[in-house]
């Protein structure tokens, strides 16, 4: 038995409560629909994140293999020197996008893949293996940036779903039952008062009749 709200058992309160229950039910329905829509969106993005994760892991592996070969070719010290000379790649722009009222990031980035001569290190002292390693890592960067967007979106949607779920449950199992119990309590109480009054009238009438007779 859910507990009841602290209200005076009056007709006014009864009407007010009935209106509130209607409102709560409408809100509950809306929230439930929002939750369903969010979950659908969530799974589409989840699939995308999964495949991107796999792609990233595979690309990373390839990239490190290429890096190892480059290291063998020119030596670690030289490779570090080369890395110092690499020109910074394109910058990204992060915008906001809305999915069902949840702000999620939208990353705009051009491809990070560059031609060897755009990287900015001299070819004289390096080998093609270095170019391959750099290219592989540029590919990794491409995937990583895409994954960053998708995973962040996923996290935010998850948080929103959790929040919505909590609200739906609170309405369904606590707030609405409590108000319904209160409505029941008030109407019983009002009936009781009515019966009391009725009986009192009868009693007074009987007394009056007895006195006149």
């Amino acid at each position, binding site marked *: 038995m859910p507990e009841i709200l602290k209200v005076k058992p009056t007709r006014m309160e009864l009407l007010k409560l009935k209106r509130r229950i209607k409102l709560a039910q409408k809100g509950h329905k809306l929230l439930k629909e929002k939750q369903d829509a969010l*979950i659908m969106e*969530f799974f589409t993005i*989840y699939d995308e*994140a*999964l495949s991107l*994760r796999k792609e*990233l*892991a595979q690309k*990373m*592996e390839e*990239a*490190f293999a290429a*890096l190892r070969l480059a290291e063998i070719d020119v030596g670690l010290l030289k*490779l*570090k020197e*080369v*890395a*110092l000379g*690499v*020109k*910074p*790649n394109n*910058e*990204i*722009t*992060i915008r906001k996008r809305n999915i069902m009222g949840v702000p999620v*990031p939208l*990353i705009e980035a051009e491809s*990070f893949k*560059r031609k060897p001569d755009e*990287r900015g290190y001299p070819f004289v002292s390096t080998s093609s293996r*270095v170019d391959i*390693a*750099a290219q592989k*890592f*540029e590919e*990794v*960067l491409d995937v*990583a*940036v895409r*994954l*960053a*967007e998708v*995973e*962040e979106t*996923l*996290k935010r*949607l*998850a*948080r929103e*779903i*959790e929040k919505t*779920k909590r609200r739906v449950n609170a309405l369904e199992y606590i707030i609405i039952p409590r108000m319904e119990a209160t409505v029941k309590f008030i109407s019983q109480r009002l009936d009781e008062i009515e019966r009391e009054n009725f009986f009192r009238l009868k009693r007074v009438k009987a007394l009056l009749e007895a006195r006149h007779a």
Partner: protein
Amino acid sequence: MKIVLMGDMDTVLGFKLAGVHEAYSFGETSLETERAKNKLKELIEREDVGIILITERLAERVEIPEVKFPIILQIPDKFGSIYGEAQLREIVRKAIGVEIKR
């Protein structure tokens, strides 16, 4: 906005070749962990950083705070991924309440 990498020496080397804007390498000692924590804090407060890539192994040692911006992404390193898909699954489990296998 910039992409910043935090990780071990080799990861840093590779991403530098790809032209990541800033890369910081951290060693294994606890002093280095402390340094990484401070760096992460600093990067989060900076306005021009858009994405922080951090290797899973480093992320394990420094706790990653929940922030809205910048985006922090954990990436595998040369030894491969620690979690694989486990982290994604955990997100789903928390959100939906059930685990999904496919």
